[in-house]
């Protein structure tokens, strides 16, 4: 059976809510009741906004039987008190079932004696009929199957699409509702708003789809990045802010396969400079990744080869570039860092013409490698960009 609270507990709750004493709350309620009664007596109806309406309804005189003696009696005409809940209350109470809809059946429904529910979207049109074509002829004459015994084949389960119903556990509380459970074909798309007290059922179906969608989107995003990077063309990898992780990809492998690797690496304590001929599909980023062991140093290459290169995103196959290789790849020397910073500065200058809005990021990057470059550049760069770059 469903729950109940005592009047005392109710008073307690109300006292808590209203911050009044229990005595006060009780008195309040009793007074309210007496006014409702008075109102009904004088005017026949009492309204409580947002809750409902108490009404007196007249029942006409009727004949009846005394259950104890069996003799006939006349039940006099009298009023009865009736409560009519208003919409907010109705909707709040019906929340768990709010998503269900009626469903049309074919003219000869083949349901068994107990009424059953089905999944429903609004089926105002006759299209649903196709679902029920498996019904038997014999049922047409006897739609409620009062004569017939329940046959396994007629079992609603066979032709009704079942979905696990969150309603189940709830309705276990009332004996009658178990009939519905066994058929178990009521779909409830619960809205996400607060479920009623005991059972926090959720729509499991919904989660799966959203996970799948998320996975799909991530997959596409990865693929997109992949495709952008793989050809590794002359499109150079952009701003330093972007995560390095995804951008390590193919270029090194490609480079390795195709390049002529000059044998000598730089001697230990000096920056080395190695000549490299650019092959198709390579980028400064990729070259930096391979030879400098750090793709982010690509502006350094740009800087060193400034005379040959104009657009930092575009290197031409066949160019011979000199790659500066750091003495110690894990720890750049001051002047090496200066080189990188200058590279970023050069790029910044380039982008000022083509993409001024984003140019400042390069200036900022320059600053991260070597702050001095910002001071040096003071006279010749955009003031706002400089402020941004310094503000890191």
């Amino acid at each position, binding site marked *: 059976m469903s729950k109940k609270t005592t009047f005392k507990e109710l008073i307690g709750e109300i006292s808590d809510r209203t911050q009044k004493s229990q005595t006060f709350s009780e008195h309040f309620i009793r007074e309210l009741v007496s006014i409702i009664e008075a*109102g009904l007596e*004088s005017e026949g109806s009492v309204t409580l906004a947002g809750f409902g309406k108490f009404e007196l309804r007249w029942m006409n005189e009727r004949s009846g039987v005394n259950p104890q003696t069996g003799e006939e009696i006349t039940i006099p005409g009298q*009023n009865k008190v009736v409560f009519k809940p208003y919409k907010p209350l109705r909707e709040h109470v019906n929340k768990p079932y709010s998503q269900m809809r009626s*469903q049309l059946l*074919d003219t000869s429904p083949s349901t068994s004696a107990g009424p059953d529910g089905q999944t429903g979207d609004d089926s105002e049109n006759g299209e649903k009929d196709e679902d029920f074509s498996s019904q038997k002829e014999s049922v047409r004459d006897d739609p409620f199957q009062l004569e017939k015994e329940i046959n396994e084949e007629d079992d609603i389960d066979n032709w009704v699409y079942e979905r696990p119903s969150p309603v189940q556990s709830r309705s276990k509380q009332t004996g009658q509702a178990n009939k519905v459970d066994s058929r178990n074909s009521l779909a409830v798309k619960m809205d996400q708003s607060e479920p009623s007290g005991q059972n926090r059922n959720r729509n499991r179906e919904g989660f799966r789809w959203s996970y799948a969608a998320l996975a799909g989107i991530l997959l596409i995003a990865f693929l997109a990045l992949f495709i952008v990077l793989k050809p590794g063309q002359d499109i150079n990898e952009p701003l330093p802010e972007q995560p390095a992780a995804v951008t390590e990809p193919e270029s090194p492998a490609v480079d390795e396969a195709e390049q002529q690797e000059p044998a000598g690496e730089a001697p230990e304590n000096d920056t080395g400079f190695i000549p490299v001929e650019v092959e198709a599909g390579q980028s400064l980023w990729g070259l930096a990744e391979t030879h400098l062991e750090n793709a982010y140093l690509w502006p350094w290459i740009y800087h060193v080869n400034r005379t040959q290169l104009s657009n930092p995103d575009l290197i031409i196959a066949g160019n011979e570039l000199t790659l500066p290789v750091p003495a110690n790849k894990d720890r750049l020397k001051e002047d090496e860092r200066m080189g990188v910073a200058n590279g970023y500065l050069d790029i910044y200058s380039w982008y000022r013409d083509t993409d001024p809005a984003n140019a400042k990021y390069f200036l900022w990057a320059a600053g991260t490698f070597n702050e001095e470059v910002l001071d040096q550049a003071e006279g010749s760069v955009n003031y706002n960009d400089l402020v941004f770059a310094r503000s890191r």
Partner: protein
Amino acid sequence: MTYSELIDQLAEELDLTKKETKSLVKEVISEFTTLLGEETGFTIPDLGTFKTRVKEVQKVYSPHHEKYMLVPPKRIVEFSPGKSLKNNLKFVKPANE
């Protein structure tokens, strides 16, 4: 009796401002609604019992569609008046009737 009339009378009886009684009544109603939302029944002495009940799925005939249809289950509020209320109001003739 309208809501505002009710509030007025209540305020007078309790010697409170209308504003305050209104908010108190609102709180009470909200508490009732919450309880009913949680399927908790409650009884108010001399008024009656409020509880919820699930209306079973029903097969009904729709003349418009000329078909039977299944009406989904529904949870409704039930009120049964208390004895004193019932008896007191059985034979009264309210002015509006």
